[in-house]
């Protein structure tokens, strides 16, 4: 179990470094946040209101005090209050986070369920028509940015075919069917690109494993091809697939920013865009820290899964 504890410790350290960097970035960059904030309307702010805001934000304190202050609050889960409506950032974030997670979870589920079998099929029947078809499709899917997919889906399904609403959100408890209907388009948008990644990685990883010596051994044992693929090849091929999934969680989380914006999905990423537009610093910092923490934790989970799949990792 030592290796799991070690990974957890490293992850905690990373989260600390990341939040410190976000804090320092906001405070060390030239330009006074208070001044920027007050000049959003276009008029030059007067010195008194700037000073008042600086006091309100604690910007008049020495930087180390500010840092320790926010760090101590961060540890107990307090990320400050939003500048636009005064609500605590943490509670707002926690309200919105599950919706973003739901979106990512649905997308990951769809794309894995469709991507791994497609990749296995393409690797086993190498050069067959099905594999070629999937490969071409994945090439197109990888090249279409997520907001292009989203915009086109809205245009086709909401504007032309009128099969689904253009966007919005209804809690599952209120209207489960409508909730799923509203979820389907943004989830499908994110899933498309991820499907292509998983498909490609499954295919190439399996092709690579099928060349290894131990596959020859498995065949020399007289195992059926099905057993060779499922028991010997796929499990060895899964580790790289997981890595791709983990690396793509980053762009996935980035993708949710655009998808939530397009489909009016009130998740955490949507709140971030809004906060960036409003220069709502505590909200920006809070969102980024939370999403990065999420990212680091997901990577941690993948690392642990990696270790469970491959006994050699545990020994390292």
């Amino acid at each position, binding site marked *: 179990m030592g290796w799991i504890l070690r990974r957890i410790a490293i992850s905690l350290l990373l989260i600390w470094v990341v939040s410190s960097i976000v804090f320092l970035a906001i405070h060390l960059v030239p330009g006074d946040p208070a001044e920027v904030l007050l000049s959003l309307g276009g008029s030059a702010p007067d010195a008194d209101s700037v000073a008042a805001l600086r006091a309100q934000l604690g910007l008049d304190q020495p930087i180390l005090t500010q840092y320790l202050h926010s760090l101590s609050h961060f540890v107990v889960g307090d990320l400050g209050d939003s500048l636009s409506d005064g609500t605590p950032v943490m509670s707002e974030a926690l309200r919105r986070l599950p919706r973003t997670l739901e979106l990512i979870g649905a997308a990951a589920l769809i794309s894995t369920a469709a991507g791994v079998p497609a990749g296995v099929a393409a690797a086993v029947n190498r050069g067959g028509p099905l594999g070629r078809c999937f490969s071409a499709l994945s090439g197109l899917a990888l090249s279409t940015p997520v907001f292009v997919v989203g915009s086109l889906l809205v245009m086709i399904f909401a504007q032309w075919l009128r099969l689904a609403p253009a966007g919005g959100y209804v809690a599952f408890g209120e209207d489960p069917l409508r909730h799923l209907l509203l979820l389907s388009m943004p989830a499908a948008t994110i899933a498309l690109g991820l499907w292509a990644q998983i498909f490609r990685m499954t295919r190439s990883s399996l092709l690579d494993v099928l060349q290894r010596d131990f596959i020859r051994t498995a065949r020399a044992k007289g195992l059926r091809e099905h057993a060779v693929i499922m028991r*010997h090849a796929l499990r060895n091929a899964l580790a790289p697939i997981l890595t791709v999934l983990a690396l793509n969680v980053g762009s996935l989380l980035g993708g949710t920013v655009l998808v939530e914006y397009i489909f009016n999905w009130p998740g955490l990423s949507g709140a971030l865009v809004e906060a960036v537009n409003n220069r709502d610093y505590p909200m920006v910092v809070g969102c980024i820290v939370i999403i990065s923490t999420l990212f680091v934790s997901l990577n941690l989970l993948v690392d642990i899964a990696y270790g469970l799949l491959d006994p050699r990792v545990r020994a390292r």
Partner: protein
Amino acid sequence: MRRFPWVSASAVAFLVILALLAPYLALPDPTRMDLAGRFAAPHASHLLGQDEYGRDVLSRLVWGARVSLSVSLGAALLAAVVGVTLGVIGGYLRGGAEFVTLRLTDILLCFPPMLLALLIVTLFGPGARTLIPVLAIVYAPSFARVAYAGALTIRSLDYVTAIEALGAGRPRIMARTILPNIAGPVLVQFSLAVAASMVLEAGLSFLGLGVTPPAPSWGLMIGAARATMSQAPQLLLWPCAALTAAILSINALCDGLRDYVDPQPAARRPTRLADRTAPGLAAPPSRDTVLSLRGLSVAIDTPRGAIQPVRDVSFDIKAGETLALVGESGSGKSLTGLALMGLLPPAARVEAGRAWLDGIEVLDSAPDIVRGLRGDRVAMIFQDPMSSLNPVHRVGDQIAEVILAHRDVGAADARSRAVALLRQVGVPDPPRRAAAYPHEMSGGMCQRVMIGMAVANGPRLLIADEPTTALDVTVQAQVLTLMSDLKRETGVALLFITHNLPVVAEIADRVVVLYAGQVVEQGDAAETFAHPRHPYTKALLGSAPREEGPPPEGIPGSVPSPGELPSGCCFAPRCAMRLAACERPPPLVEIGGGRTSRCIRWSEM
């Protein structure tokens, strides 16, 4: 070497030229508004129509390409310079530099790219000028990782040590030796980064946080067209198509480059010849003959035509007998073993020949019949025991698996049988070792496990392909002893494939010497070694160092490659005894005492 990806490369080149030439193309000003012409349909002066402010759509697309490309190329270039520098220094120098590179990239990679970009845009405000450094920071870590991994691999290669031994300085090694050898992956990463920056730039502009209006940008155009998509869907479609096409061509170039710089020959599926009958070869095998092979030829299709690495090989093995198949690299000895197992690599195929295992034809039978024989009546062990065992399964389970595949027993029975087999092949503490993974065992132990797996179902024939080559001398002796013990106890016939003549002298009853895919001599091992009847066998014996006697003599020249075989005797170009008659292919002749030789001068030796 694969072909250069010309199609995608020219598509990308077209895009770049279009962007470069934008100011000279006599297009309308992309920012000039014409409120009278809002949503105008395409006509002569506006080929793709006008947008919601009456601006020319085509012009905005072309100028958008210019913005998009300059931002993404600039960002990728900056990221590449910074990332590769960090990565190469970290990977080559190790130590402190390595720590800095790795931790820096670790931390930057904790921010999803979009978030990092949003954070920086929050701090510095939107605009094309900030986008380049922003995107460079986002993508520099991936360059650093690629360069680091490459440098780490290259630095451990002998040619780097060689240039260090020559006294080259570190900057010279990094610039002249490491950098050219990681250029391939870095180039691929570069086109990936260009495509990704393009997507990110468009995404930020789409959100209104990237390129600021009224400058033309594909992302801005898509964002703006969303509001009017019911009136003018074409305004959404054009930039979407432009963006997707641009990224598609860059991605295709990237894939093409990857194949081009990393040439892995694409293996073809086996295409079995229908007319592979071999008339007149079917000598009915005698009763105690376990394996009878007649006229085996293996062909491999290469881009330069088919080659025949195995030609017309025949031999018999009796029960309890050890036949050594001897040859240097390229002699076709391993392919012969794999062909008998029905395990030829996808590129190779059996072109002619028949083989009977216990009276069952194996080369021409349905794959399912051959599969049923593998692991049961015929088993095989390989050169590298560590890589031949599956790293993610326990060794006991891997042995039990072969029993379960061929015998109707329960899982528990199979597992206890596996433990008994481990004991039989001399693995200490079998119950505990059965639960171990291959990486927890030494090479010698792994080879014992492989042998246990091979004899699990009491095979009639065991094919061993260089089973001791990867092992240390003292461990090799243990494994050889184990194999002869097993042969004596079970009466299994052994086909021992090796290049090592002393090992043959130790273990073999009979020997078949292969050269360039052909049998050149075969017979009783002791007889053949004492009185070789082919110049190649004699020269090979003279090449092996002996305890007493003169230093070994080599054979001048090298083995001909299967694509460039001499027309006559294959060994003639290296042979001290060659005559003019050797220009014609010599037959394999019986020379008495159950021996054969493919030399026209065998009697003079």
